[in-house]
């Protein structure tokens, strides 16, 4: 198998951005009929390698050889024509177009000299059905949550007859079931002889699907391995570049040292709800505790967070903070009351791409202090640098636009934004999305240490194991309704799913 | 007459100047006095709006249509519609270019070329200095009828005397602010300016301020010839800062209503009816000022 002709080969790729060398002498081989995982920490250069390969960014030096012929792609269009189909990190589709169009734009079916909408929609439905999604494909993409958008992006890539399929963190906002479905499809494609390049930060997924692994570290080629020859620990060590203690990846006893629920909750929501969004819900969040929100996609976790943070206005119920009734009608008010909210859709709701890292970090703190209590720039820089160090954000300096950071590092900056406000309660909606193993650990550590300092945390994640790991209590949601509460220490995934399934019956 | 009131649809150019405002006021009050039901429409200086207004007058079946053409060209189509609907048309201010004279009954108003000529003649007759006469010209809005025609008339006359030369000409858009701004630049670029010819009083008033700021005496160091005869010009003349203004009379309301009635009655009229207009040099300003209405 190894001696088979590689369909795609990259050699000696160099790429530098102003101030950073993103890729140094990187190579990659892709064989037909295999799934190749590209691994590396945040900022290792995975996405850059893909962009360079697909003509989004130009190469400084190096060769790309496709089916034995050297190519120098200049545009995505060109690359598509060559039979390479790509899903980029973050959803890169047009929110205003319908789902069907997003899948087929550029390759519309025509009939009588005009686009055949009917055929297109039915083909789109078929394409999505393969991923087990049944949605109205005539609605604009923006009416669906990120997860669906990600599936649509995948469906788009799958719908082309490509020989090479590249997926950059396609699973970052999918839950396990959807991932499984995606993998089924990938296996089918693999059997057809298609070469698949796959980026993920989930080791489980890597081992579940990939045959071969290329590891990048700090923009450099670390090595290429067969998946079966490389153990998890080895892989992590190669990515991180140092020995990591295996025990830190297991759930630890004592994580949930019983913190007594003494006294008043920090925030108590009583019958909080909004018609069409969330059935009235009772929640209490205690200082020094993590409240996990469990549930499946679309179960209403994000909606709960939005109501708590005043982004959407509840039309029933009430909220008390430290026993005092408050009316949370805007994020501004919430921020002033010591709440913080790290949204799930980093690109459109979180980062302000053109502003510098420093400005992004300082934003919420400054908003909390108001216009005239200005933090002098030197102080701002100090705070920014402090968090860059503390969270290990990989950047040359704090004045770089955040848009130029790798996805995971952007997420860390958002965390820094909220930690800088020294909140009393922190709502994290999918904070670990797109974050590498090591960093994920750090973030979980951070959640725990912050928690120990008396912060109240609401934690939302599609990865149930993560929720279970950090949560002291888990509120389980289903169909925009709270169906029960579990104790974090004594539950496992099985019990959560049982609860969800149980109330269904 | 026991029959219903006469309706007269009038499409005005706009309200771009004091002159125009006075013109509108005169027409409105005269209509009221004459017991004519006036449908007034303001075109905001756009020909297409005037055409639309005329169409809507036709749709409303008014008795007589009147309008002050923004430009002289481009009226045939809509006027043919009016003719087909048997509605007579009178023009004010200026005439239109058309091969078919039957499209309108008559034109009442001033003659811009004639105003330019009057200004030119006054200058030739009254300029006292010796040697070459350097004239700067403040034009109205580029392409507008008064600007083109006043310039034409003026140049036509001063051509007669080779001493008189227009050394600079620039548009001041008929406004005080632009007039001042342009004059400022002229004064810096040209050390010897003897005469200013301005296409309207407003620009002249602006220019006077610029001349004063440059330390010269308007009306003496630089002779100022202007057109319109608005109140402000009379004030400037009384202060000795402007030499002459050629009147362009906007108060033709009463005369217009008269004509409307005659048109309705089917009386024959000449194709052109001129309004009474004068020329007011500085000396007559104080006497005239109290009787100025606009």
């Amino acid at each position, binding site marked *: 198998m190894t001696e088979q002709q590689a369909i795609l080969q990259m050699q000696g790729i160099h790429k530098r951005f102003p101030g950073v060398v993103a890729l140094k002498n990187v190579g990659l081989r892709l064989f037909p009929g295999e799934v190749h995982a590209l691994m590396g920490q945040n900022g290792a250069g995975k996405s850059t390698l893909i962009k360079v390969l697909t003509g989004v960014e*130009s190469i400084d030096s190096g060769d790309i050889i496709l089916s034995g012929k050297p190519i120098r792609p*200049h*545009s*995505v269009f060109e690359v598509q024509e060559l039979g390479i189909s790509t899903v980029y990190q973050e959803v890169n589709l047009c929110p205003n177009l319908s789902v069907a169009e997003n899948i087929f734009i550029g390759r519309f079916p025509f009939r009588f000299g005009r686009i055949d909408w009917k055929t297109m929609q039915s083909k789109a439905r078929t394409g999505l059905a393969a991923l087990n999604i049944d949605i109205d494909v005539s609605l604009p993409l923006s009416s669906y949550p990120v997860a669906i958008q990600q599936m649509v992006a995948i469906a788009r890539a799958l719908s082309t007859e490509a020989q090479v399929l590249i997926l950059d963190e396609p699973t970052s906002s999918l839950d396990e079931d959807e991932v499984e479905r995606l993998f089924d499809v990938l296996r089918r494609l693999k059997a057809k002889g298609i070469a698949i390049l796959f980026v993920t930060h989930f080791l489980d997924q890597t081992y579940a699907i990939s045959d071969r692994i290329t590891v990048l570290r700090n923009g450099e080629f670390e090595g290429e391995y067969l998946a079966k020859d490389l153990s998890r620990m080895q892989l992590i060590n190669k990515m991180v570049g140092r020995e990591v203690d295996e025990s830190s990846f297991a759930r630890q006893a004592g994580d949930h040292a019983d913190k007594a629920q003494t006294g008043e909750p920090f925030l108590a929501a009583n019958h909080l709800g909004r018609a069409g969004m969330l059935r009235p819900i009772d929640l209490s969040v205690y200082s020094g505790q993590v409240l996990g929100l469990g549930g499946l996609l679309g179960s209403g976790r994000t909606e709960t967070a939005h109501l708590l943070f005043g*982004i959407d206005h509840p039309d029933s119920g009430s909220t008390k903070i430290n026993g005092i009734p408050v009316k949370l009608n*805007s*994020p*501004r008010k919430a*921020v002033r009351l010591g709440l913080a909210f790290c949204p799930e859709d980093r690109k*459109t*709701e979180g980062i*302000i*791409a*053109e*502003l510098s890292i420093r*400005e992004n970090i*300082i*934003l*919420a703190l*400054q*908003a909390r*202090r*108001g*216009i*005239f209590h*200005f*933090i002098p720039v030197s102080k701002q820089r100090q705070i920014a640098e402090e968090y860059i160090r503390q969270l290990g954000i990989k950047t040359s300096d704090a004045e770089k636009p955040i848009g130029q950071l790798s996805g995971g590092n952007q997420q860390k900056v958002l965390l820094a*934004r909220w930690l800088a406000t020294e909140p009393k309660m922190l709502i994290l909606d999918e904070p670990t999305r797109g974050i590498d193993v090591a960093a994920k650990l750090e973030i979980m550590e951070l959640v725990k240490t912050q928690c120990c300092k008396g912060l109240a945390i609401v934690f939302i994640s599609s990865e149930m194991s993560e929720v279970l790991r950090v949560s002291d209590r888990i509120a389980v949601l289903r169909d925009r309704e709270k169906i029960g509460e579990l104790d974090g220490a004594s539950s496992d995934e099985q019990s959560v799913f049982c609860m969800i399934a149980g109330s269904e019956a | 007459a026991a029959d219903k009131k006469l309706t007269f649809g009038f499409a005005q150019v*706009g*309200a*771009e*100047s*004091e002159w125009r*405002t006075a013109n*509108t*006021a005169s027409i409105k009050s005269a209509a009221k006095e004459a017991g004519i039901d006036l449908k007034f429409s303001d075109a905001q200086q756009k020909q297409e709006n005037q055409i639309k207004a005329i169409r809507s007058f036709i749709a409303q079946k008014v008795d007589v249509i009147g309008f002050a053409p923004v430009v002289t060209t481009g009226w045939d189509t809509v006027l043919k519609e009016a003719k087909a609907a048997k509605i007579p048309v009178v023009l004010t201010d200026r005439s239109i270019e058309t091969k078919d004279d039957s499209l309108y009954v008559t034109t009442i108003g001033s003659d811009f070329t004639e105003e330019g000529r009057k200004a030119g003649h006054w200058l030739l007759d009254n300029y006292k200095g010796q040697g070459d006469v350097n004239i700067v010209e403040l*034009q109205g809005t*580029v392409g507008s009828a008064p600007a083109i025609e006043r310039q034409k008339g003026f140049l036509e006359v001063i051509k007669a005397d080779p001493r008189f030369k227009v050394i600079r*000409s*620039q*548009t001041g858009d008929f*406004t*005080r*602010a632009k007039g*001042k*701004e342009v004059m400022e*630049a*002229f004064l*810096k*670029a040209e050390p010897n300016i003897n005469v200013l010819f301005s296409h309207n009083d*407003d620009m002249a*008033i*602006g220019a006077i*301020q610029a001349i004063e*700021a*440059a*330390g010269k005496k308007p009306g003496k160091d630089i002779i100022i010839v202007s057109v319109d005869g*608005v109140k*402000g010009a009379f*004030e400037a003349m009384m202060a000795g800062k402007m030499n002459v203004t050629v009147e362009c009379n906007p108060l033709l309301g009463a005369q217009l209503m008269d004509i409307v009635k005659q048109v309705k009655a089917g009386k024959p009229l000449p194709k052109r009816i001129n309004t009474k207009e004068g020329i007011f040099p500085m000396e007559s300003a104080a006497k005239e000022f109290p009787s100025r209405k606009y």
Partner: protein
Amino acid sequence: MRLKNCFHHHLFWPCITLVLLCLTNFFFNHGFFDIEVRNGALYGSVIDVLNRAAPLMLVSLGMTLVIATRGIDVSVGATVAIAGAVVAVMIGGTLVIKDGVQSYVANFPMPLAIIAALGVALLCGLWNGALVAGAGMQPIIATLILMVAGRGVAQLITEGQIVTIYYEPFFFIGNGFLFGLPFALYIVLAVLLILLYLTQRTSLGLFIQAVGLNPTAARFSGISARALVLWVYGFCGVTAGVAGLVITSNVKSADGNNAGLAMELDAILAVALGGTSLDGGRFSLIGSLIGALIIQTLTYAIYSLGVPPEINLVVKALVVFTVCLIQSERLRSMLFTPAIHLEEKS
């Protein structure tokens, strides 16, 4: 190293453009840089340009902020006219002749009139802001409403007349000189300093950029985007009002129909020439001032070169294109790097 930094400064190319234009002026009119002292005031072409550019500079400052929030305000010209009308009507338009002696009567005290005019201008701005931030209309259409109706309001106030002001002290604003320089320049300077303070020594600048670049993220971070946008438009109204005062004072009269005509275009052009993107976000106040100066220098050049009025616009167009080409990074990189990439890149 120093030189290179200055080369990459965002104001470098606007400045170069301005200098080039001035040199063009000088080439055709050698007196361009001459400045003499007359009646204790500086007198010369450069002073004229600065003085004339003052209203435009004021408006561009306000416009810069609006544009930074990803908005646009096409009603500034109308606001200029309204403010001018209010102040003119309040200060007075009566010339009384008693026994052959002319005397001027101010209807209201000047400070009151000025405050009223600025108040009305603020209201105009807030009205725009309310439509944009409150009702959620698109900025161009929200301000178009005032652009159309505003001139009507101005004419309503002046009853369609050009209201002449006969009150000496008021003329100082637009005609007066202080320490040899036109007073209007000090107004510009004051507004600029206030704005620089607000945007650099308070977090206003950061908030405006955040709202302009990503309103959702800004809101989620606890910035009340609505209030901010409301006040930014309000402020833009005030700067237009001040410009209205300067213009009115300068020509000693208010013309509801013509004051500030097409000023919105010039102001937007100034902002864009100064290097601020019309898509919102990063902005440069100084850049906008330079932009305004570029426009005024160009206008002045057209007047003093003796360009025939028929081709004014052609000249203006060519200069605008040239200026943009000079400022186009893309063109420079195409000229100075051998590989020309015309293909699609972002």
